[in-house]
């Protein structure tokens, strides 16, 4: 099963490599990875999506917790949560396809953020499934390039991941 694990990490050189190294060292999977500083400058928040059965996920969270640089973590998929990803897609936009791209973008509530005579760059946010569906819809028109941020997430309600 797919899990989204969010981690508060010491904002120290080398901390990220310990997390990433752990996954390859122990033969765990990384599907997406997303990391940036938080409002507290000494901490980064890292979100990783991974796939595994309960035993594997238990091992992943235990080993992550063992890393000295990991301050706290939560498996968001254990409760209600919000999951978002941002994607930028460059598509061919010539002739009739120009309108088709615009219409599809509107249906997906995506925005065209850059325009040339032959290319539209579309920005779309949503969960991974929505982004996948958009890529599928655009594929026949001609996708030129895709940049995805990887999943970021947060628990619904009062639950917090903080110090």
């Amino acid at each position, binding site marked *: 099963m797919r899990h989204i694990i969010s981690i508060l990490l*010491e904002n120290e050189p080398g901390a990220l490599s310990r997390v990433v190294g752990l996954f390859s060292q122990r033969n765990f999977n990384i599907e997406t990875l997303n990391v940036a500083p938080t409002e507290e400058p000494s901490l980064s928040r890292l979100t990783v999506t991974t796939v595994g059965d309960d035993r594997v996920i238990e091992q992943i969270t*235990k080993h992550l917790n063992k890393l000295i640089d990991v301050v706290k973590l939560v498996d968001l998929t254990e409760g209600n949560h919000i999951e978002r990803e941002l994607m930028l897609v460059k598509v061919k936009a010539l002739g009739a396809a120009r309108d088709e791209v615009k219409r599809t973008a509107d249906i997906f509530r995506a925005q065209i953020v850059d325009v040339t005579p032959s290319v539209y760059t579309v920005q779309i946010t949503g969960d991974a499934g929505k982004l996948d569906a958009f890529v599928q819809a655009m594929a026949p028109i001609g996708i030129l390039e895709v940049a995805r941020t990887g999943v970021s997430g947060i628990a619904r309600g009062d639950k917090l991941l903080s110090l």
Partner: protein
Amino acid sequence: MELLSGADMIARFLKDEGVERIFGYPGGAALHIYDALFRQDSVQHILVRHEQAATHAADGYARATGKPGVVLVTSGPGATNAVTGIATAYMDSIPMVVLCGQVASHLIGEDAFQETDIVGVTRPVVKHSFSIRHPSQIPEVLKKAFYLAATGRPGPVVVDIPKDMTAPTERYEYVYPKKVKIRSYNPVTRGHAGQIKKAVDMMLKSRRPVFYTGGGIVTGHASEALTDLVQRLGFPITTTLMGIGGYPQGDRQSLGWLGMHGSYEANMAMHHADLIIAIGARFDDRVTNNTSKFCPTAKIVHVDIDPSSISKTVRADVPIVGAAGSVIDEMISLVQGREPASGEALAEWWQSIDGWRGEREGKLYEPSEAGEALKPQEVIEAVYRATRGEAFVTTDVGQHQMFAAQYYKFAKPNRFITSGGLGTMGFGFPAAMGVKLQFPQDDVVCFTGEGSFQMMMQELSTCKQFDVGVKIVNLNNQSLGMVRQWQDLNYKSRHAHSYMESLPDFAKLIEAYGFTALKVTTFDELAPALERAFADTSELVFLDIYVDPFEHVYPMQVPLGSMRDMLLSKTERT
């Protein structure tokens, strides 16, 4: 307030931390630190002849004393040479602090002379690592390194020190930090009270219980408490290779150690048990054999300080995260005044165990007859007698390691010092040096083979310089015995590169360093040679003992089988 250079801070910190001795090898990036060591006399520096030996020696010290071993090496090759020893300590959870010189900060990343990203290289084999970014951080970072190395599940910590951090011209305030706090690191001590109670209830109700304890008992200083608990309950106990000595092996309740080459009765008892009480052991593949066939009728209580060790390979029914000593103490207080529910069942259980013991008694190996080559097993037994079972024993890796574990009986923890997890050939001799320097009055025996010894024999020179009187027992079978055994069993005796052709004349080699070497080829020569070797505790003696090259280590678990599936000799199988 005291102003010190980074280098002087390091020397001063080691003194304030109570470090008596460090093992190392100088080089460009570490020279400021070496100069600081030269100008003090509190910390002794042992100059090894290869950085791997520095880590093994510090490791031997740590295993014998329970305190962190300390290593100092230079950047680049100095640090990479230390990696095998760091990995060895990591796999066996041994506290160690490794100080590595590094090229000056402004050169990092430029492929400077003797530059290696040692923090990157060692990342998978350390508990944690630090890079010094400002000289003023040195006292706090070092304190954190020692704190991390020695607490929780111990392990090696690397500190990377760029050369400019130790420059003699830059001085900063030095205060010895008595305490440090790391917000993300709070090792557990006490186990969950409810879980402990549940475990004790299961223990008292069980009909066929067995304790299975590991290195956590030794590193957690829990051997006395364990002995108390096991004797109160009257249960059988088996230990892992790393847990040897955690319970006195001469006691009736001890079944010896378990696993691939463990005792017949230990493996049989595990397989038939209805309750396994695992403490400070990690169910590794050399213990469990095939996990899907592991102990089919047993419930499992698993006590470990490291949550990630629990249910990693075998699911625990009652997981308890906690320090071995504290959990055992709580178990004792719950057991007090209570009796196992069925004394009858326990008596029947002991009958089965005594039956298994009886089956193999006197059949473990065939002693040599007159005119035949010595058996390695009888050499170990003779050394056991010659040292009255009181020596510190280190081993290298291979057949001799298994024989030493099987035939030398340990009454105390911290006495059997072996690379169990990583299986590092070359470990034994430098580890023995580290032990002997700390315990000059004790006999320190290194059981080795001609394969392993040649991996670290340059340390004879270190022993000469520092007068280290270890006894080296070389079980010379003129082949890589364990490799050869596997080739006999799995490759139709095609002995690919398991011969040690062109062996040196060890006696001449040893004598070149000014030490005594004794060659033994017959049983009659053995006892007098041992008497001579152990006459003077302070003298290094090398015993080159020719043993039967065709001997195999048994019992040996059958691959992919259960605990009880064992080869018992070249012709017998369970």
